[in-house]
């Protein structure tokens, strides 16, 4: 709160300190800054880089310019067009996100290049569609905002839009959706396995950034009185990326600082210093590679001045919608082939609804692949996988998770740059939070009886502000296991949960597994190499070999089986 009031105060007094000329300039830069905050959201939070953000700024500017001209005599109608124009930009961004992310989940180079291409296309349309856009010379004679003609009014309108965008961004960053954006950038696969539709979450981020650029663009038209193709041009798109980077893309205020500082310096120096823009480009590369936190990073030591100390009261989470009575997991004739290679060969397995089951087999037997087909990450070429009678073949990982399947990966897979508390919160949201609730910041304080029990067993899980990356390997294993348990799954898949752990840590994991089996009442399926662990835990052991089931039975039965001995001792099959 203190930070917010400080920002508002600065915004209000700035024109008195700097004078009319700068007030006018800053009124314009405030609108650009609104768009730059959106670039910061995509790049600094959600981890994908839009290179054509001016598309949404310019589209909205043209729409609002056209509306202001069309409703010249009806200023109230024209003002109503402002949010409408911004909304069109937001929806377009969301739609582009859905189209590009949906098929491939691609958020790297392909996404960036397509946004760049769309921006160039928009520029071409803007310059060539004379009858609507006014072509190269632009849309001229746009009436101003009604009742605001003073230069300081222009500034305050820009500042108000920027503050609104910052308030919106500050809110979503504090809400679960903001945490999910960060999680997405760090470990997309883990998020999918927790049941989140990551492509939709990414599209929402891009849509939100489109809204921010759209709000800036909508006000730009009446403020400047003219919209030229430069407003959708590549140059502005590039500037927005530079401003966000220089100011600090991961920070809420960073892109604003970058826009104001670089924008006003450029306006001053472009003409007097011939190599200014070359210097800026070099500066950008250095910032990106060496100071990813930008200017905001240098101000970080001061952040404690603004931090408010509040006790985080916990809120009870509702029951998981994925929580259903335990069910049998049945694989029937599952085949997976990649090229010539057979990974799973008509594999049929049948797991009881409750109990601890171990899957063993030599390297390459298909154990992890079996987990991958069950969790929906690997497509089964043939056969069915039924969980309580529902066939999960063909469902994406997030839908399988929704049916009550949780998974712990072999190498600890957490969200390293998030706090332990946020890591655990994401697991709690899985299957419990509705889409609308993802906008409610109080969800970050959710807790559940299971979480409280886990926290009393492992006190480090209660140290909320530490980052997951600071934990030891063993602690990360336990954190990920705890996260998987918090979803209260019907079927829990554990891939070598004790790999790389000390004997004490191994003991802790075994204890937690036994406890979880009782507590959840469902099936826990463990891939394990260590026979001493298997002996301790397994009720039934399944031996896989060459992608198919070789034997099943109790530990004693398996050890006596001549086929199993042949495979392990290295005799002929």
């Amino acid at each position, binding site marked *: 709160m203190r930070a917010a009031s400080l920002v508002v105060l600065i915004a209000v007094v700035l024109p008195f300190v700097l004078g009319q000329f700068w007030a006018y300039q800053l009124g314009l830069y405030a609108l650009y800054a609104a768009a730059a905050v959106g670039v910061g959201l995509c790049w600094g939070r959600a*981890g994908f*880089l839009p*290179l054509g953000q001016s598309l949404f700024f310019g589209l909205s500017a043209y729409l609002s310019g056209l509306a202001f001209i069309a409703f010249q005599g009806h200023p109230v109608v024209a003002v109503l067009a402002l949010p409408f124009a911004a909304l069109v930009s937001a929806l377009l961004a969301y739609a582009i996100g859905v*189209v*590009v992310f*949906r*098929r*491939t989940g*691609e958020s*790297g*180079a*392909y996404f*960036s*290049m*397509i946004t*760049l*291409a*769309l921006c*160039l*296309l928009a520029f*071409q*349309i803007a310059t*060539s569609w004379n009858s609507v856009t006014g072509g190269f010379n632009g849309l001229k004679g746009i009436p101003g905002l009604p009742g605001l003609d003073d230069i300081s009014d222009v500034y305050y309108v820009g500042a108000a839009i920027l503050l609104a965008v910052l308030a919106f961004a500050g809110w979503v960053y504090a809400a679960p959706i903001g945490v999910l954006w960060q999680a997405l950038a760090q470990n997309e696969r883990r998020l999918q396995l927790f049941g989140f539709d990551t492509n939709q979450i990414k599209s929402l981020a891009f849509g939100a950034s489109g809204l921010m650029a759209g709000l800036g663009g909508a006000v730009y038209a009446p403020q400047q009185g003219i919209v030229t193709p430069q407003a959708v041009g*590549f140059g502005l798109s*590039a500037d927005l*990326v*530079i401003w966000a*980077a220089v100011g600090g893309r991961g920070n809420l205020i960073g892109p604003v600082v970058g826009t104001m500082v670089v924008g006003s310096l450029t306006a001053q120096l472009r003409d007097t210093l*011939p*190599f200014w*823009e*070359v210097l*800026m*480009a*070099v500066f*950008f*590369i250095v910032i*990106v*590679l060496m100071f990813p936190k930008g200017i905001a990073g240098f101000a970080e030591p001061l952040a404690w001045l603004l931090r408010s100390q509040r006790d985080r009261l916990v809120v009870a989470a509702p029951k998981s919608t994925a929580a259903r009575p335990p069910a049998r997991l049945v694989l029937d004739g599952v085949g997976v082939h990649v*090229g010539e290679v057979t990974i799973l060969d008509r594999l049929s397995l049948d797991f009881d609804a409750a109990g601890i089951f171990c899957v063993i087999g030599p390297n390459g037997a298909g154990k992890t692949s079996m987990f991958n087909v069950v969790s929906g990450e690997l497509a089964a070429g043939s056969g069915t996988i039924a969980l309580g009678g529902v066939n999960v073949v063909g469902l994406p990982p997030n839908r399988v998770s929704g049916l009550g399947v949780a998974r712990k990966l072999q190498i600890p897979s957490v969200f390293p740059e998030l706090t332990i508390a946020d890591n655990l919160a994401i697991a709690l949201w899985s299957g419990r939070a509705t889409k609308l609730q993802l906008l409610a910041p109080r969800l970050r304080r959710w807790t559940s009886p299971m979480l409280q029990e886990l926290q009393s067993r492992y006190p480090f899980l209660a140290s909320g502000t530490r980052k997951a990356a600071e934990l030891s390997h063993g602690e990360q294993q336990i954190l990920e296991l705890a996260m998987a348990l918090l979803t209260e799954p019907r079927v829990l898949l554990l891939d070598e949960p004790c790999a790389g752990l000390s004997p004490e840590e191994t003991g802790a994991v075994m204890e937690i597994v036994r406890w979880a089996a009782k507590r959840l009442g469902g099936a826990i399926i463990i891939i394990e190499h260590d026979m001493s662990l298997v002996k301790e835990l397994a009720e039934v052991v399944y031996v896989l070999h060459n992608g198919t089931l070789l034997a099943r039975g109790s530990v004693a039965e398996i050890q006596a089986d001549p086929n199993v001995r042949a495979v392990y001792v290295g005799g002929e099959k």
Partner: protein
Amino acid sequence: MDPLIVTQAINVLYAVSTLAVLALGLAVIFGLLGVLNIAHGEFVMIGAYCAYVTQSNGWPYLAAVPFTLAVCGLLGLAVEWAMIQPLYRRPFDTLVATWGLSLLLRKIAEAIFGLGFYSVNIPLPGTVQFFGTEYPVYRLVLIAISVAVVASLVLWYGGSRTGSRIRAMVSNPELAQAQGISVRWLAAGTFIVGTCLAGLGGVMVAPLVPVQPFMGLDYVLRAFFVLIVGGLGSVSGLLSGAVVIGGFDSVISAATNAANGYFAVLVLSILFLWLRPRGIIARG
């Protein structure tokens, strides 16, 4: 045969073959090193400016080739050392870095040559009779050069020791290193081949387009579309991508206007990303 159709057919052939050369450098760097060099188009621009400088000094046009290769080669070496090599296997950082590089190269060109357009005279003016129609000689020569460049690179890659070392590096860098192959220099060399190919493409097209700082954007996007449609990792993919993108673009542009042609290839590329994310000819 109808002369107009012959002209159009050669136009399509010209568009496809030059596009293949312009995409080749991007494909080499992306396919072999996994680095999407957004500044690829700026190396094309540098080639075009080199051609302009060559001509305005009164040197023979062919002198632009070694000139460009020297400039793009040295620049490629410096860039690879400063920002590509430290970022291998960090594709997102490389993306941002090469985007910054493209910005830098554009601004440098702007600072030296200004924002204005330059035109380069066609080194081989005149036309030839061709199936009952007149066609510019220079374009026919470009088609031949394009075919020669692509073919010789493919033959060299497939047949030489260096080619097989590169293949070893791509499939397993650690093992290649252990076999005594200097992966470090091989990767640098591969990057330089890519930037030099871009520069060469710039010299080729310079007489036919306005030379200006922003010209590279268009080339890198078109080359990128070729890679999306064709898929990475094979020559047949590159060629089929060039045929689809170049052919579609030139036919639709000729029938309507350039913006429509551009829109069509963009939509086509997005469709491919959806329906065949690994391109027409997918490897493996």
